[in-house]
């Protein structure tokens, strides 16, 4: 008798705990009372009730950033877009433009390195205000964020040992080649579409290591990354890149964009800022500094 009582108590406790955990879902709109953060940033939201609430909260994203005085930019170490100089300061095309954007909003910029897989959670939990890191506008990004206009083009390129580059010129198929790719990347899709047998590794840098060590015939990585990481004056001076896989497949190039929270008015602010920056030439100037001028979208 006693035993069964204990059992039921335990079961009830478990049910309670699990139902609490179930509240952790994505139903942010049903959780108005809990939105302490944005309401604190824009107190007038408290007065408006009913269905307009979520809309109002999102509208105040620009005000939220300006009230706290900092724009927290979520990024990773990704040369030439965001990387540290010898003094440990963040530089790069994206980093410099993000500083300029923050200045235009009248706030300070703060760079926060994030784990790339959790970028959407970081945004929604408001531990960052935007994702600005050479982010390809793919379906995942478009579904979970609102993005500014595309500002940069990217393609997938084939990286090969420099002394064998001639063998790969004007190649239209990768059949019979062992190609290292980043797991889950656009490069993996491209290599497979062209008939290569692929070795999936964790990072683009690892893919380069495979080619360098001779354990793979070639690697597929981003054009921008290839421009910065291989060739003379780098640690991969013995590598070079040849085939543009997007052209080889007859695909359009990928586009880079800046991601904000869904419904954020920062998107409009960013688009205005970017048009102005293109008009006054600062986009091209910064791009030239970091060697990405060829990839920029200047219109």
């Amino acid at each position, binding site marked *: 008798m006693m035993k069964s009582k204990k059992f039921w108590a335990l079961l009830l*406790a478990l049910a309670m705990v699990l139902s609490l955990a179930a509240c952790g879902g994505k139903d942010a709109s049903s959780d108005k009372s809990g939105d*302490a953060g944005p309401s604190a940033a824009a107190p007038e939201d408290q007065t408006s009730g009913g269905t307009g609430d979520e809309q109002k909260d999102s509208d105040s994203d620009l005000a939220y950033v300006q009230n706290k005085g900092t724009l927290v930019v979520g990024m990773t170490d990704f040369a030439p877009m965001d990387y540290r100089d010898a003094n440990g300061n963040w530089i790069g095309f994206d980093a410099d433009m993000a500083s300029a954007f923050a200045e235009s909003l009248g706030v300070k910029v703060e760079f926060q390195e994030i*784990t790339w897989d959790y970028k959407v959670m*970081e945004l929604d939990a408001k531990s960052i205000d935007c994702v600005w890191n050479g982010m390809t506008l793919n379906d995942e990004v478009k579904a979970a964020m609102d993005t500014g206009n595309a500002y940069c083009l990217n393609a997938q390129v084939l990286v090969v040992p420099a002394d064998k580059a001639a063998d790969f010129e004007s190649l239209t198929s990768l059949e019979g080649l062992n190609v290292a790719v980043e797991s889950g990347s656009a490069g993996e899709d491209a290599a497979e579409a062209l008939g290569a047998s692929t070795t999936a590794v964790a*990072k683009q840098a690892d893919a380069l290591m495979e080619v*360098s060590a001779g354990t793979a015939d070639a690697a597929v990585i981003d054009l921008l990354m290839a421009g910065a990481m291989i060739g003379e004056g780098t640690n991969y001076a013995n590598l070079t890149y040849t085939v543009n896989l997007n052209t080889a497949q007859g695909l359009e190039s990928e586009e880079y964009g800046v991601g904000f929270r869904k419904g954020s008015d920062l998107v409009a602010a960013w688009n205005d800022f970017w048009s102005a920056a293109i008009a006054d030439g600062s986009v091209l100037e910064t791009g030239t500094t970091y060697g990405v001028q060829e990839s920029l979208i200047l219109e």
Partner: protein
Amino acid sequence: MLSFFSSTEFLTVVTALNTGFIKTLQLFFVTLVGAVPLGLVISFGSMSRIPPLRWLTKTIVWMIRGTPLVLQIIALYYVPGLKGFHIWSGGESGRFTAVAVAFVINYACYFSEIYRGGIQGVPVGQQEAGLVLGMTKRQIFFKITLLQMVKRIVPPMSNEIITLVKDTSLARVVALQEVIWMGESFMKGNQGYAGLVWPLFFTAVYYLVFSGVATILLGKLEKKLEYFR
């Protein structure tokens, strides 16, 4: 070979790894300082004579020990923010606080079971002897049971403490820049160096040295407590 150890590459990497290892050490010590006493409180809960309290404590211990620490870190850092409660301050310090709280709770639960084993392992005869001498319950616990429990728990605690040194590397899942994060950063590119693999493997030296020192110190502590025998 020797010239490599004085090259700017080596010095830059080691400086970065040192910064990361300081974070690792901070997390290690904060966890110990928090979890050692909290574990004792939890062990009292799971030995309590009040059944609901005992069940509640045991359920919590089961949940914490039954789920991966890495999941607890992710949940503790992101879920409050996703629900609109921004309890962690921005930047690195907020991440550190969240991770430290997750570590303290997790390790306190493991410690509590070690304490429970240590306390319940002290023979009843010892408490009876205390009663015969006219000691109060409180005196018996602090002067007899707890003292003998400390000696018994040193070997299993040493085990957990050395595991803790290495578990701190899980903190990089929410981008806390501890020593492994720093080592990995040179693969992608950091401070002008890209494609370096050796910094990642070099972090092993830090862990080995630190766990070596910890092993020696804990061994000394064990020796010191031998007079109980």
